[in-house]
């Protein structure tokens, strides 16, 4: 297993299932992305939240009023629990949005500001 730098500390492994009696896991290409400014590794094309979870990240956003932490719940794009800011866009369903190299993923605080569509923000 490759080394990575993540919340688990330098050299910690991605929390992946290495041996399974029935399933073989075929992952996409390993790419680097950013979570709140930290560089992490994940597999391209797999959902952002899966990559975060494998890096030990459980908290994806903070609620607007009670400031409660939220992680994911349904993982099929239905429950809204895993909303994050991805490349400047808030309220992205990270459980069904594929990871791309260089993506900037941020913890969302509150409802998030919808970006001005004319500001030419960069897309990865």
């Amino acid at each position, binding site marked *: 297993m490759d080394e990575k730098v993540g919340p688990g500390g330098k050299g910690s492994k991605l929390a992946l299932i290495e041996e399974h009696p029935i399933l073989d896991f075929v992952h996409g290409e390993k790419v680097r992305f950013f979570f709140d400014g930290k560089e992490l590794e994940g597999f391209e094309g797999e959902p952002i939240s899966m990559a975060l979870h494998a890096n030990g990240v459980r908290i994806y956003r903070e609620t607007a009023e009670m400031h409660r*932490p939220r992680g994911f719940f*349904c993982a099929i794009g239905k429950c809204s629990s895993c909303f994050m800011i991805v490349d400047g866009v808030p309220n992205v369903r990270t459980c069904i949005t594929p990871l791309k190299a260089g993506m900037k993923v941020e913890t969302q605080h509150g409802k998030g500001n919808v970006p001005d569509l004319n500001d030419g923000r960069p897309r990865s």
Partner: protein
Amino acid sequence: MKKIAPEILVIGGGAAGLSAAAEAASAGAKVLVVESDLRLGGQLIKQTHKFFGSKDEYAGTRGYKIADILLNEIDSFKDSVSILQNTTVTGYYTEDDTFTAMRGEEEVFQIKPQKTIVATGAQERLIPFPNNDLPGVYGAGAVQTLMNVYGVLPGKRVLMVGAGNIGLIVSYQLMQAGVEVAAIVEAGPRIGGYWVHAAKIRRMGVPILLRHSIKKALGEDVITGAVITGLNEKFEQVGPEEEIECDLICIAVGLSPTTELLSQAGCKMMYVPQLCGNVAQRDRTMRTSNPAFYTAGDASGIEEASAAMVEGRIAGLSAAAALGYPTEHGKIDEYWSRLESLRMGEAGARICQGIECVLVKGWEGASHE
């Protein structure tokens, strides 16, 4: 805005939706399947266990392999079935009979089909307890997605809430993935799932605590444990209490049909406890009160994937027939007899009660305005 106009739109690329698409395509119709997830196959791709049911619905085959079989079948209709993944249908507007949809988070477009099959599946239920919103309280489907689709360890030690088939099966899958199962709590007086699944769990030494539930989850930012408690006959928390150390609480207390689009389309809905929620009334062709809408799979009532596949076949066949494509006489009756054989037994009897409530003979005087 871009607008596409397929003959048949199938919303949902799971067990029911793929079966519907294959069946409609085999009758000659052109079909568009829209799937919100990145992968097709719905919940089937998360199932590592061998299915029960009947041979026609691949009994004895593991769930994810059944998904492969359906995808191969769809592949043989490449010319008539197109598929959009990572695409969510976001609403239906009766003013112009048009759906809005988005691919990814930004590309927005419209769909105006001639017929629509709503095979949107279900969503996980949650029960109330303090801290049930903390990260680490995951629906059983989410746990399956993490470990069985993407190979990510969902946690180290789990408390499972619910001993129905999903709770039992996912507990076993967690052990296959190397996660320790601390216990399964079940509020009811008996195990809801199949005996064979429960026996596998018990052989592994995992306690299944009946008349027990979770009292609260522990943790500041993420789950660090749970307090479980005994329940009396009225489901009141009477103890004894026990603290369980865990970083994952898996909720397997049932599913609710996903039916917003059917409601938006004006389909007559009905609350049917046996089918686990609000579902559309339908006739034997799976048509709803809106003549352009069909329903199949968990969206039409929570049931096993084998039944969802048969319902999908019926809906696909009926939608194609309604568009004038020739279909084999008597095939719907044959599918219904398959459903009947799948619905034998205790759980099936309850489903049949539910179906009896929502099934209409015809739409005289009840048609869509």
